[in-house]
């Protein structure tokens, strides 16, 4: 068992982590904004429904949610999940959308009322004020907490092995079962590399936004 073989083996596993990461990112970012609008809605039933949903998702382990999404359709409705990656993506997207929604809400609520009032007295509509004035300020403010959350997401993708997705740690565990322990610790390097790239990326984005306060 050569070092090179193990490295490429683990790399194939990491591909699954990256796939799950990108899928979650692509769908949870917009879904999170929808949930934010729900939880900030003036229509009380929608507001409390959304808040209850966010409470349930944030209040239960992601691992449990993975089991629910993967097994419940088959056990209860007789439609077994055909794709493990699809099930994992659904669970991750819903879970992370809820966390993102709270970050968005914090960002939106931190924008001073004066910005909305300035938009109004200048004859702008509510949606013009939100999308042309407020949103960019929200984006700037949520960059640091979003960076944090995405680092957590990178590492959380490993949880998908509980529904037998062959991600990097699972790939390493196959060696452990055969008595080779070091590949398991070696996976840390892969996570460090991914998180390193993300950290650099977020540093760059923060700098891009530093031209205004």
């Amino acid at each position, binding site marked *: 068992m050569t070092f090179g073989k193990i490295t490429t083996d683990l790399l194939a596993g990491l591909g699954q982590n990256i796939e799950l990461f990108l899928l979650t990112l692509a769908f949870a970012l917009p879904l999170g904004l929808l949930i934010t609008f729900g939880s900030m809605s003036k229509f009380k039933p929608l507001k409390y429904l959304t808040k209850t949903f966010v409470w349930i998702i944030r209040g239960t382990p992601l691992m449990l949610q993975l089991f629910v999404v993967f097994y419940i359709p088959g056990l209860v409705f007789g439609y077994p999940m055909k794709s493990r990656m699809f099930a994992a993506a659904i669970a991750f997207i819903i879970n992370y959308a809820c966390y993102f929604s709270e970050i968005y809400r914090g960002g939106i609520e931190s924008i001073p009322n004066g910005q909305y009032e300035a*938009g*109004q*007295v*200048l004859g702008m509509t509510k949606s013009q004020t939100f999308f042309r*004035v407020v949103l960019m300020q929200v984006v700037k403010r949520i960059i640091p907490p979003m960076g944090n959350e995405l680092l957590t997401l990178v590492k959380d993708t490993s949880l998908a092995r509980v529904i037998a997705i062959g991600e990097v740690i699972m790939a390493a565990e196959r060696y452990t079962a055969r008595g080779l322990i070091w590949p398991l610790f070696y996976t840390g390097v892969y996570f460090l590399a991914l998180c390193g790239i993300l950290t650099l990326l977020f540093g760059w984005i923060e700098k891009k936004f530093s031209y205004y306060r």
Partner: protein
Amino acid sequence: MAILEVKDLHKQFEGFQVLKGINFELEKGQVMSIIGSSGSGKTTLLRCITQLETADQGMIMVDGSITFDSASKKKLSSEEKRKNQLKTGLVFQSFNLFPQYNVLENVTLAMKLAAERRPDFKENKKEIYEEIDDKAKVLIAKMGLSEKLKNYPCELSGGQQQRVSIVRAMALEPSILFFDEPTSALDPELTGEVLKVIRELAEEKMTMVIVTHEMDFAREVSDKIIFMDQGIIAESGSADDLINNPKTDRLKAFLSKVK
């Protein structure tokens, strides 16, 4: 005919009466200052006229249009509301410039968004935008801020920011321009440049209503001053009269405190 007419205006917040029946009129080209201690209702009055708050009772007429009337059941369409909104301009105490836009963009954003409603917008977009930019540049130059066109608000002094926010309000050509304590957030050495701009606007016969604590400035620039106390107009009159010969005890007490 009066360009601004306010009749029997009432406003309460959670049971607390902030405005208890305000009546006044203002002629076109006149400058009116509103003075009074904090909590007297000055800012609430301004916010009701500029539609940031909805009054509970009374009537407001701006430049021939009734913008608020508690006796009328008629609901205004959003288009009518927007038209009414643009009749009044407001300069905030805390400027409220848009931080992510530079000076020129701050001044032109609302005009460019409004231009999207024009039927010829799609064909002439470029020309329309250029026209708006040119118009804004003229106004910005008038304020002596030509060199700051591409600067962001955080790169400007407080006085410069407030001048930009005055241009931004002026650019939409409101019938009346309102100022809510325009110099209160500024260091004393920066108030002068903002007051100078307002003085110049007064000379050009811009109709203005100014909530201010600068008594000397109010007397110099205003045609008319109203003194508010506990939600009513306790005294009103010409600038010199009101400040030099206060009639009520409350105004006397107020003036002795601020002078």
